[in-house]
């Protein structure tokens, strides 16, 4: 009995073991549904613009740091940087010489940058080509380049600028309206550069066309130092006491002319003065009647667009090489919007 019991136990164990083996085999042989394990795919997010910049900011490169028009340009650049959340920096030299601008550009190249908002002036071309050779995309601001100045020639990925010749012509039309084809009239420039030369040409060509009998005096150079400019303008007023109109092609012209006219005892409106840029001093001179109108170059828009193009370049998106912008001639009744921008250029730029 005992032996049977032991045998029975062994049999049961063997059978259970066999059953387990068979069942395991059957289960293994059974066709089964594939087991789907849901694995979360890694989130591949778009790289931010700052990622694309790789720690290298866009840099606004310039000179004439104290010039109010430059402040407006810097503001346009800075606003775009904030709006698109990109890393940006200013390298702006206080000097007025071309060498000062070139030194600033070289600093930017040495600093490391993912794009330069620089100048399109021909005097800076070698320095621009140097940046391009280093693989840095450069925008040429404030210059309206001729068709032969292609990207290969300039080293720029794009240029942005008002057509100075066009606004020069617009000033001629405004001058004709205000002076009834007054004569003589004169153009004064801060220096001889691409933009001011083109503005001068636009004015002279148009005024000659619409006022064929008018005398247009030879261009004079004001310089950039305020006293120097006033002295030069005073001499012009002496030489031409019958002067009817003046077009100053630089941001300091209105102040220099306005002060010189006041000191010469001229009444507001006696000489029709049109100049550039909506700075606080210029706006006040229009309000006082010594200046007739301001040519509002789109300097803010130029540099805002420069950042947008640099971003497009960074992302590999298309953009235009040629970006001509139009300017407006603003008289006393249209100053309000300009005042806001002029004020912002005093308050909204970074402290450093």
């Amino acid at each position: 009995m005992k032996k049977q019991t032991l045998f029975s136990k062994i049999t049961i164990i063997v059978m259970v073991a066999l059953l387990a083996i068979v069942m395991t085999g059957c289960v293994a042989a059974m066709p089964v549904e594939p087991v789907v394990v849901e694995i979360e795919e890694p989130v591949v997010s778009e790289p931010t613009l700052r990622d694309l910049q790789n720690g290298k900011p866009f840099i606004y490169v310039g000179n004439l740091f104290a010039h109010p028009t430059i402040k407006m340009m810097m503001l346009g650049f800075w606003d775009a940087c904030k709006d698109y959340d990109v890393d940006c920096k200013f390298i702006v030299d206080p000097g007025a010489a071309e060498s000062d601008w070139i030194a600033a550009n070289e600093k930017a190249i040495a600093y490391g940058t993912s794009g330069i908002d620089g100048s399109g002036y021909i005097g800076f071309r070698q320095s621009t080509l140097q940046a391009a050779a280093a693989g840095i995309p450069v925008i040429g601001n404030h210059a309206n380049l001729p068709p032969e100045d292609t990207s290969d020639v300039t080293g720029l990925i794009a240029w942005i600028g008002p057509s100075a010749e066009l606004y020069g012509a617009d000033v001629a039309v405004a001058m004709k309206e205000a002076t009834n084809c007054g004569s003589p009239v004169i153009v004064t420039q801060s220096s001889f550069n691409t933009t001011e030369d083109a503005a001068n040409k636009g004015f002279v060509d148009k005024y000659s066309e619409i006022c064929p009998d008018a005398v247009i005096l030879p261009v004079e150079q004001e310089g950039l130092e305020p006293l120097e400019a006033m002295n030069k303008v005073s001499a012009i007023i002496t030489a031409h006491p019958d002067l009817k109109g003046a077009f100053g092609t630089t941001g300091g012209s209105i102040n220099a002319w306005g002060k010189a006219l006041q000191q010469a005892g001229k009444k507001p409106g006696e000489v029709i003065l049109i100049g550039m840029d909506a700075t606080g001093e210029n706006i006040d001179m229009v309000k006082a009647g010594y200046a007739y109108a301001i040519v509002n170059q789109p300097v803010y828009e130029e540099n805002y667009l420069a950042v947008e193009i640099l971003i497009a370049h960074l992302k590999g998106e298309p953009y235009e090489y040629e970006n001509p912008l139009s300017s407006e001639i603003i008289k006393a009744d249209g100053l309000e919007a300009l005042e806001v921008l002029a004020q912002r250029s005093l308050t909204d730029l970074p402290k450093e």
Partner: protein
Amino acid sequence: MAHRQLQTRTGMELVKAYLRKPSTGVFLVLVILTALFQSGNPDFLSQANIEAILRSMSYVGIIAIGMGLCLMSGVIDLSVGATSALASVLFSKAMVEWGWSLPVAVLSAMLAGAFVGLVNAYVIIRLKVPPFIATIATQFMVRGLALAWTRGFIVYPLPNGIGNIGMLKPLGVSVGFCIFLAVAVGAWFLLNKTVFGLELKATGSDYEIAKLTEVRYILVHVVLLMLVGVLASVSGVLLSFVLNGGTPNVGTGWEFAAITACAIGGVSLSGYEGSIEGIIFGLLAIYALQNGVVVIGVSVFMQNVVIGIVLLVAVVLDVRRRKYLNLEGL
């Protein structure tokens, strides 16, 4: 006959005595220029243009008077233009942003100029740095300070019509010219009627010998460097009145305009020789020249060429004059 010979000799002596004056050469140049420009345009000597020339020269003129005294004492200050900028900015900030009264704002600007002069004096006298290098260094520092302080912005506008002061014409000429005249008279008195004037010339004549005498050579240089700093500040403030604000790019190149006026006015860049009237003639010559080339219609592309040639001729004539009178080395 003997009487006639005596008269001739006396006449020659008079001419020689006149030629010995450092201002003679530039005065003759000024007369010639005036005649040329007047023949080119009769408006050159109009009241309005004379006013314009006098007004133009007054800002640099105030500095040139101080610079002339420095040069006569054997020291030079190239930081004056930058000091004008700093004073312009400081004065305007004091008026516009801090609400200081006009006298306090003007005084603070003048003190800033004096301080820059004191720093120059310390670096030149105590640290033995040549004046040319020392004041170029302070020029960079001071203009940089003005720029950093304003972040390049114009400080504008001055309150309550204070800017109108720049347009006033007491005695028929600008405020700036009135102050220039006062400074010139004061400097003439200092140079010609005081012991300090004698010490100034002695220091400029030979610094090493001055050290061996009782001449207060250190005091002379400290006072003059502080004085030219104060005068640069006065110019900066005066231009702020006209501009109705302060800007850090005021005064760019003023130091060279002042030195040029002194040089062609007969002030020796190596010290001792010079006069206040010579500096005034030098200023008149430069500003009449800059004005005249425009008034008679010289092409803008040739104006600097003409100005350069005339200045060179003026200096060569002065060199010839010195050689003729055996004045080299003075």
